[in-house]
């Protein structure tokens, strides 16, 4: 995060860090990876009490933020979670909350998500497809007062534990989003490179939902989905930034502790130059996350552009940095026992999810080219 956090934000960061350190140490993460669930619902509810679900929800709906810049506060949580490769549906729940709050209605769902009683997720990928959340193959057909949804979503985060699915679908009027309850769909778990982040495929077999399931306006979800992409993109980038920060920290410490040929690794210019690059890239990652975060928080005109820049740069550099840290650790870096792979797994998933660096670069080119043509 930025160096100019308010005292309240600093306190919030400390509280979050202490809670995560005591509740989900890396040892705990390893335990969870072999258990039936990637996170404990009661634990998530306690996170909700700490504010993890409240930051994007206005005060009159029961939410509230630390600094009146809720998204920036939420990025603090995401970064802290990245530092410990924490479990939990922080990104999907908050993306859905931001969508529901922007659209209005769905007060009960907002309430239960806010309290940590319910978990929601963002169903925007489809089998065989790349990153194109605004062009769904899932169809929504009018049926009396309600709708029939058909198709499959996959790469749905926390699908195993979700109670609610925010589904993008093509209605005759255009892109539309629906909030679909768990009992209407079939969830098939899929594998995940991340030890504690799980994904699933969600089948919508002619599911009938009432008109009240629509989020926002029928056929008008384009802007809302674009906004969700920004919230998801910057949250994910902040989480990766936290992971990179932590890995570089302990790799630098390792370079001071580890001696070869009678001197610490940190004294070799060939390695010092690589550390200098990694330090620079890491500060740059924090810089772009922070710029993108402020733009999304303020709904600035360049928010999409900055989020895409963050996606492209953070995705590319984070994995490069962590892989290089593995190299600098030598053989010990590729063992199961060392924590490095936990971070590498998280960063690798984040690099591929919700847009690859290539996807983000093409999005940036579209923005640049259309601006120059204007």
């Amino acid at each position, binding site marked *: 995060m930025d160096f100019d956090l308010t005292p309240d934000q600093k306190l919030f960061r400390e509280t979050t860090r202490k809670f995560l350190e005591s509740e989900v140490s890396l040892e705990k993460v390893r335990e969870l990876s072999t258990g039936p669930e990637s996170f404990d619902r009661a634990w998530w509810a306690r996170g909700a009490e700490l504010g993890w679900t409240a930051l994007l929800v206005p005060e009159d709906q029961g939410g509230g933020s630390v600094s009146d810049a809720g998204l920036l506060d939420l990025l603090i949580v995401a970064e802290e979670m990245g530092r410990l490769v924490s479990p939990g549906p922080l990104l999907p729940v908050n993306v859905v909350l931001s969508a529901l709050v922007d659209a209005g209605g769905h007060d009960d769902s907002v309430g239960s998500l806010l309290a940590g009683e319910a978990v929601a997720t963002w169903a925007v990928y489809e089998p065989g497809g790349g990153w194109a959340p605004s062009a769904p193959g899932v169809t929504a057909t009018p049926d009396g007062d309600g709708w029939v949804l058909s198709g499959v979503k996959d790469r749905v985060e926390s699908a195993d534990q979700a109670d609610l699915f925010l589904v993008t679908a093509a209605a005759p009027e255009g892109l539309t989003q629906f909030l679909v309850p768990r009992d209407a769909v079939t969830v098939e778990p899929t594998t995940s490179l991340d030890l504690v982040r799980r994904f699933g495929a969600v089948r919508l077999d002619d599911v009938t939902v009432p008109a009240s399931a629509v989020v926002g306006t029928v056929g008008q979800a384009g802007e809302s989905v674009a906004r969700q992409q920004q919230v998801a993109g910057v949250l994910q980038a902040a989480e990766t930034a936290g992971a990179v920060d932590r890995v570089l920290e302990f790799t630098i410490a390792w370079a001071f502790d580890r001696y070869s040929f009678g001197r610490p690794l940190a004294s070799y210019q060939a390695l010092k130059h690589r550390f200098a690059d990694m330090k620079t890239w890491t*500060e740059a990652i924090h810089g772009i996350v922070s710029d993108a975060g402020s733009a999304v928080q303020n709904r600035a005109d360049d928010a999409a552009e900055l989020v895409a820049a963050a996606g492209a740069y953070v995705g590319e550099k984070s994995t490069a940095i962590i892989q290089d840290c593995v190299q600098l650790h030598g053989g010990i870096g590729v063992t199961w026992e060392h924590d490095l792979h936990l971070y590498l797994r998280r960063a690798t998933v984040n690099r591929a999810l919700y847009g690859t660096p290539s996807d983000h670069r*093409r999005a940036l080119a579209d923005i640049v080219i259309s601006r120059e043509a204007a």
Partner: protein
Amino acid sequence: MPRLEDRDPSLDDPENDVASWSRTKELQKILWNGGFAGIAFPSAYGGLGLTPEHQHAFNRESQGYEMPLRINVPTLAICAATVLDMGSEQQKRDRIGGALRGDELMVQFLSEPRGGSDLAGVTTRAERDGDVWILNGAKIWSSGAYAADYGLCLVRTDWSVPKHAGLTMFLVPVHTPGITIRRIRQVNGSTEFCEEFFDDVMLPADSVVGEVNGGWAVASRQLYWERTSMGGGSPYVSGWGRGIPAAAARSLAGLARSVGRLDDVAVRELIGESRANHLVQSALVRRVTIGLTTGALPGPSASMTRLMHAETDWRDSDIRVDIAGSAAVTGATGEVGELSLNRQAGSLGGGSTEMARNVISERVLGMPREFAADRDVPFKDVKQGRA
């Protein structure tokens, strides 16, 4: 200011360099007469005494107008900034005022023919003779010295102490008896860089900037401003850009269109990559500036912006060549290829990126310093060559 579209393009021709410098002075005079010169410089020395944000706002508004960009670096952002921090009252009034009025340009006399990145190892010397100093030696890689009026010149004044302790910074009038300037032709045809030879140049005692034998402190400040301006964080530049060649300023999308490749997905990814790099670069400048202001980052962190600037430059050079393909070396976009021959400019000018990486690892991360055979050794006893 004149509109950018009315600018005389012949000023970009390397052969026309002298005209380009005199145009720079003309434009600076227009800026001065309009009351917008040196927005962030103190009013006592001819500036407006306003904040970097005021300058930033002016820079934003000045896009689309022809600006005296070549006076920004090194005259205002490096030399005047250093004089402001380290010079005498008289030097501040004369040199900062002279630059802001568009009367004078300044140049850096730092590097030496055998010096490389070991700046504190300079062997150009000044010896005291009564009221004057006598300067002898040679400097190199000074941009536009032939057009400049004053140079900040780092020389050795005491050979009996270790290298950093025996240096002094002088303000040298460039067009003075005993100074010979030779222009150096670069691979891209540019002749902006110069080499200077000093033969018994007489300098009055008040030419010293800072303290006699305290030159390293002045040079350090100068290097700080150099890194800051190379990284894009100087509060003293007027208008954006550094008067770089047209090919480097040209939009990548425009280049792609001109070679018929705008719809190529691979090309679009390159355009997007470049845009991301530039946005990240400005984000880093902002972050480092806040870090330095709040004390969260140590002073030498400015080297990170210097390194990032070079990397962004490099990548852009490679991307331009990739987009233009064979047209860059044979056809209509030949200037893209020429420019790429000078690809290292951004990672050599202002100290090599290897030095930046040393600074970052040693002074930001606290890693052990490299072994130096000249540490704590009187400079006269330091080996200067193989013999």
